[in-house]
């Protein structure tokens, strides 16, 4: 299968070329068949590639394919167009092509009345190519190609409705802030090449432990610079400001790029370079702090937003903070696990929100919604499931991944501390609160929309609801592959990723503890207390936004200073 690896990114690229070169000459059905079909075939190939990988011994799970030499300068600098499949990229391509395909199908319905239909799918195909190149690249520079490519597509898709100034402003902002991050990525890459003499991941993994001194300023600088790149792409403090504005783009874009795939690239990059980070504990500490701060801070902003997509945007920023917190305590597997479950439920939430917006004649303000439950039963049910998942209700996917992160943030020998755990748990409670607020404001209570809008409310077409239902299933079962060792003998997910997580001699001790053992009683206690807190916060949301809505208004008046602070996002930008 390794010889077909290049087809996974190439097929969407061919789709891009066909749709792009024949823009305006193809009918809508043909455009969508080319775009969706190419991603679907990529997904099938990814599936086979994944299966082939499972047949190999864990240590041999790495397939490489070099296509041609891209840049060769002098005797010592050579970078190829090469793809590499290992357990980490296998998960990524499955998520990207799988969720990506569902969102493509959803877009057929969502974008059906848009005059820019073909242009939309052209951009989406280009995005898929870039994203798959990002995760399959076998070296830093090719990864950077994908990295910049997804940034470009994000720019084009945020500003998709280019006659709106707010949209093109948001696109430009996203691109420039990402470019600031790329500045860090580039310099980090320079240090790595300068020291290691190669940009190939395999070489870096092999040589880094010899070249760099554990904890030295140089490796710390390299990691921090790479992390600046990750901060830009994955919207961490202080480079998060572009992501909420990015909601100007069409909703499927928000789901695909700004929730499920592109924004997680920073997390992917950290895990990919974990060999370096594990040698730079100081850098990891910064990662953990930034992640924890972002998780908490963005969640508080999410409490007060009225635009349904903005709530979800801040939620995404917050959840990405979680993933970085996990990476920061050297629990890379937990980070990737949450990345995957988050891709399912957050894509679902965005698509559900899109379905609501679609049914509400493009209304996005939750103050003018309410009572939609009976008009849009499928959207309601699926979003409800996703809300359970993100809130961490036991049994749903988000519970397992979030619990894993919380436990590691407490127990890991690498920076694990009770402070991180407390921040994590409070964030989890806030998350549950704003998510149930969203559900109650949207689907329950009085119908606050105008008559005109009300007469048009309808459930979305099948092309939109079927992806919702599939994602709902994934949001439930997606967590079961990574059952914590409290429930199952082995954590399959962790075992699967083990070959990718390189333990250096000094870093191995922390990793060993991060991957299990510890105090079982303590683990149960922490888990139960976090669940109780989450349930309590859901109850509060129920009380404020369903049962006695008057309390929420009076409370809002009393706390108006606080509310304005949050509504205005702490007056940043």
């Amino acid at each position: 299968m390794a010889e077909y690896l290049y087809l996974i990114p190439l097929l969407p690229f061919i789709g891009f070329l066909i749709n792009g070169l024949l823009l305006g000459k193809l009918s809508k059905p043909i455009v969508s068949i080319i775009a969706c079909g190419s991603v679907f075939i990529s997904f099938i190939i990814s599936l086979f590639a994944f299966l082939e990988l499972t047949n190999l011994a864990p240590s041999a799970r790495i397939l490489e394919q070099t296509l041609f030499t891209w840049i060769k300068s002098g005797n010592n600098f050579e970078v190829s167009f090469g793809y590499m499949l290992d357990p980490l990229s296998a998960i990524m391509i499955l998520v990207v092509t799988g969720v990506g395909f569902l969102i493509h199908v959803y877009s057929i319905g969502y974008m059906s009345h848009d005059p820019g239909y073909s242009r939309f799918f052209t951009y989406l195909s280009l995005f898929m190519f870039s994203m798959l190149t990002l995760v399959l690249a076998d070296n830093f520079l090719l990864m950077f190609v994908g990295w910049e490519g997804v940034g470009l597509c994000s720019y084009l898709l945020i500003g998709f409705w280019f006659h709106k100034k707010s949209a093109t402003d948001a696109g430009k902002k996203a691109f420039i802030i990402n470019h600031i991050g790329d500045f860090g990525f580039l310099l980090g890459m320079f240090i790595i090449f300068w020291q290691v003499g190669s940009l190939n991941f395999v070489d870096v993994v092999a040589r880094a432990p010899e070249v760099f001194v554990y904890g030295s300023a140089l490796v710390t600088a390299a990691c921090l610079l790479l992390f600046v790149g990750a901060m830009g792409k994955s919207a961490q403090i202080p480079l998060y400001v572009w992501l909420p504005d990015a909601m100007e783009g069409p909703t499927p874009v928000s789901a695909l790029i700004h929730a499920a795939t592109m924004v997680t690239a920073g997390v992917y990059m950290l895990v990919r370079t974990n060999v370096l980070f594990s040698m730079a504990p100081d850098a990891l500490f910064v990662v953990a702090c930034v992640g924890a701060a972002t998780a908490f801070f963005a969640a508080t902003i999410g409490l007060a937003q009225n635009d349904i997509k903005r709530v979800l945007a801040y939620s995404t920023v917050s959840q990405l903070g979680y993933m970085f917190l996990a990476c920061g305590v050297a629990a890379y597997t937990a980070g990737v696990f949450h990345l995957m479950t988050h891709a399912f439920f957050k894509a679902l939430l965005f698509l559900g929100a899109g379905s609501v917006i679609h049914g509400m004649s493009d209304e996005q303000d939750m103050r003018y919604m309410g009572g939609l439950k009976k008009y849009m039963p499928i959207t309601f049910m699926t979003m409800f499931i996703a809300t359970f998942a993100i809130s961490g209700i036991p049994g749903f996917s988000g519970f397992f991944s979030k619990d894993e992160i919380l436990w590691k943030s407490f127990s890991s020998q690498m920076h694990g501390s009770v402070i991180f755990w407390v921040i994590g748990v409070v964030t989890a409670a806030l998350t549950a609160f704003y998510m149930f607020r969203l559900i109650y404001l949207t689907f329950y209570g009085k119908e606050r929309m105008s008559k005109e809008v009300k007469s048009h409310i309808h459930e979305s077409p099948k092309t939109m609801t079927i992806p919702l239902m599939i994602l709902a299933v994934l949001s439930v079962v997606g967590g079961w592959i990574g059952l914590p060792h409290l429930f199952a003998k082995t954590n399959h997910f962790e075992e699967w990723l083990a070959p990718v997580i390189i333990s250096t001699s000094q870093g191995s001790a922390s990793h060993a503890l991060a991957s299990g053992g510890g105090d079982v009683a303590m683990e149960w206690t922490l888990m139960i207390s976090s669940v109780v807190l989450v349930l309590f916060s859901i109850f509060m949301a129920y009380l404020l936004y369903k049962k006695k809505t008057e309390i929420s208004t009076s409370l809002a008046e009393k706390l108006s200073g606080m509310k304005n602070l949050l509504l205005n996002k702490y007056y940043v930008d």
Partner: protein
Amino acid sequence: MDSSILTLTTFFPAIGIILLLFVPKEKTDTIKGLALIISVVTMILSFAAYYMFDPLASGMQFEVNIPWISSFGINYHFGIDGISLLLIVLTTILTVLSILASWNSITTGIKGYFISMLLLEVGMIGVFCALDLFLFYIFWELMLIPMYFIIGVWGGPRKLYAAIKFVLFTMFGSLLMLVGIMYLLYEYQAMTGEFSFDILKLTSTLALGFEPQLWLFGAFALAFAIKVPLFPFHTWLPDAHVQAPTAGSVILAGVLLKMGTYGFIRICLPMFPEATIAYLPYICTLSVIAIIYGALVAMVQKDIKSLVAFSSVSHMGFIMLGLFALNMQGLEGAVIQMINHGISTGALFLLVGMIYERRHTRMIEDFGGLAKVMPLFTVVFMIVTLSSIGLPLTNGFVGEFLILLGMFKSNYIYASIAAVGVILSACYMLWMFQRVFFGEVDKEENKKLLDLDAREKLILLPLVILIFFIGIYPAPLFSRIEPAVKNVLQQVNKAKSVYLDEEYQIRYYKDNTGQNELTLHTDEEQKSK
């Protein structure tokens, strides 16, 4: 054929000039057609040179060396290496496109205009072929005259001011270079007892002391720095660009600026290695200032053309920085970026010219929402913009990345500051793009603009292809410039304070205090030369 190809390519446009002289000036179509045919044949000749060129051989190829004025040791000495080869091909391609771009926009003095274009081409190719300083100087000056006329006669409202400023600046530099050449000649005569203008001979045999090197480098470098233009000698450039007709701007940015950096590679670095090392911190500082300053000034421009002009100042700063990284990545990146800058800035000027022909304005505020009325134009403009800001898989990335990587290895501080320029370039280009192409079409005049016609597509297509070709598969270019770049580094290695390591990186000896701080090497092994 082998040895005559350069002479043929250089002087073929001159044949065209002679033919054009016999065409009556009323027959404008014949004049245009003839000029186009001549430039296309010249381009094909340069392609032939490209295919005949042996990428593996080091040293000069297609050499011709015939005594010309023997009493002064002046020879007709032509020859090219990979660097000049690529620049010649760039020149001939851009000349064809410029002639096509002038098809409708030049309405007066057509005969004189096309004769000037072809004369300019002779000068440009000549500079890249010449291996004799006397010839080099003649061709260098030869370019000046037609360019003066192109700006001064066919330019915009303040054409005379711009043309005279251009000439004064360049003449000042040329005079310094002339003095430098005389001094070199004198030194050589004092050493060997005979005259020679031969660049190769001078480079290999002349062992100048530190002091004379400083003076000579200064004279030549100033002449070249004005041409580049390196901050603070850039003030002539925006005026010249804004006033010049489209084709003039294309040639000016695409080829003439490269004369400066080419001069550094061919003359300053190999002939004066000690001075190169001594001046390095100053030139790098100026380059970094140029990168940041050019980008910042570009950001506030109201005229698209002067925005592109200032972006050139910034981009040329990158090229200078790459040259003075003094390693393979830096130098190769710089050479590739010389080509890239010619392609993408050339394309930008062509695009600006196309919109100017339609609207007779270049002010950003006069546009808005063009994406709706001119979709194809928008796509091409987007691609060129991305190439200019160095997005991966476009040509700009390959050059910029290698320059920064090379410089980082030599001196990480310069490289880190210069990398800020990468962010800035995205800012000013995208902001301009947004204001011109996005939003509603709110100006009446913009509602009926026509999209690209067949001639314009023909002009832009080759550039778009080159943007992606160099971005995705630059290997053929690298293989041709590698031996040439290695030669340059071997020459710089003659300086006493440095050595060339096995990766072709110029490194300082540790005992040479003061200069040691410039680099951040962990060179444990002190190699003796």
